[in-house]
């Protein structure tokens, strides 16, 4: 059970986790926002399937991994933003977003 120190944050943003909309104060990390929303576990380990969630909250433990645009990131090192789409790290290829598998590997073409 996590309670915000600043329940009356001036501004909130709405992001998405696994298709569900979640409000969080601007400036919060994705990990803090997900803990506050009652989600202590964010993934299952690749080897044993044991549940894992945010632990160190400072970028050291790599237990709070999530995916944004198909790239694995640390939820505690990522700030919430309006419209941000966050997903669980997939455990099987069929869970990966199908658009990972297309084209040239998803390199961003820089505007010249």
């Amino acid at each position, binding site marked *: 059970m996590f309670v915000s120190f600043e329940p009356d944050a001036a501004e909130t943003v709405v992001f998405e986790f696994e298709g569900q909309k979640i409000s969080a104060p601007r400036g919060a990390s994705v990990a803090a926002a997900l803990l506050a929303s009652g989600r202590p576990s964010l993934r299952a380990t*690749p*080897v044993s399937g044991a549940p894992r969630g945010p632990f160190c909250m400072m970028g050291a433990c790599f237990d709070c991994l999530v995916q944004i*645009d*198909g*790239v*694995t990131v640390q939820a505690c090192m990522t700030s919430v933003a309006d419209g941000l789409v966050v997903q669980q790290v*997939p*455990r*099987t*290829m069929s*869970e*990966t977003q199908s658009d*990972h*598998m*297309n*084209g*040239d*590997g*998803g*390199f961003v073409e820089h505007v010249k």
Partner: protein
Amino acid sequence: MTTLIIGGGVVGLSIAFGLLQQGKSVLVLDGGDGDFRASRGNFGLVWIQGKGVDCPSYSTWSRRSAGLWPGYANDLKAASGIDVSLSQKGGVDYFTDEEELADKVSALEGLRTAVGGDYPFEVLDHTGLKKLVPQIGPKVVGGLYSPMDGHVNPLQLLKALTIGVKSLGGDIRTGAQVVEIKAADHAFTAILASGDHVEGGSIVLSAGLGAADLGESLGFKAPVRPQQGQVLITEKLPFFLEYPSGTLRQVNEGGVQVGASKAEIGPDDREDLETLAGLARHAVEVFPHLAKAKLVRSWAALRVMSPDGLPIYQRSAKYEGARFVTCHSGITLAAAHATLLPDWVMGTNQAPDLSDFSEARF
């Protein structure tokens, strides 16, 4: 009479394990953590296809070892409790260049003839390969599948060997850097950097690159040189890669290992960005979805190479009871080393014929 084994990598420990299984007494002298150690940096392949194109007996010897691997893995599990994650479902060599694929096919066809026809492999075009490995990218023109290939978890193998050798009653001394060997027939003294003297009635020099300095004192040429290889390790990814290749494999825990460059730059095990970037480019060419994978580690390690790249098995012409073993495929050959080399080390009439791999060729 104790056999001294100089070098406690996968080669030395596999021989030690096999000697112990035959009831012999062994003492393994393993060097320092700062030494170059192929056993801690390798790619973990039990690989057959393409090996020995210019030397069919190397192909046959490697394949014999691959056939012995399941039993060897079981023996290791029984002795150490560790599963080395042996998988021998076959391997795939991926090609992004039609001409390179065609060259490799004729090389393998020649080898198949040379070894008498029993040499299974399939040539797959892009479509056929995509059926087998759906994740390949559009730049992959085709590949070669062979059921002979496989891989293990090489660090678990090293651990299993260390525990297994000890559980069978062998002795392993770590941090024991041999600086000099005094030799006479069936009487060998290894002098350590610490000043300690260790004695044995026979000796196996399996010291990787360290053999270059120690070989002469036992009557060996020991012409080994380092060849650098660099590798990348990704985060643990959903399982997609059933078949390892010479450059890409997914280990049993999900990480993808990408290798393996080749550089003749002497005893230098430092990575460089250009080489690692090249490995990453290759990985993404073959499997585009890896472009989004995070890398967690990279390293360089040194292969132990003889002048022609083939193993060397040599009995000393100078001293009775001295043996020299080196190869760059210590993982592939580990099962043969544990199962077949003990007889060769002891000189029994069960010994395999390894005359094609003597130092006489240099």
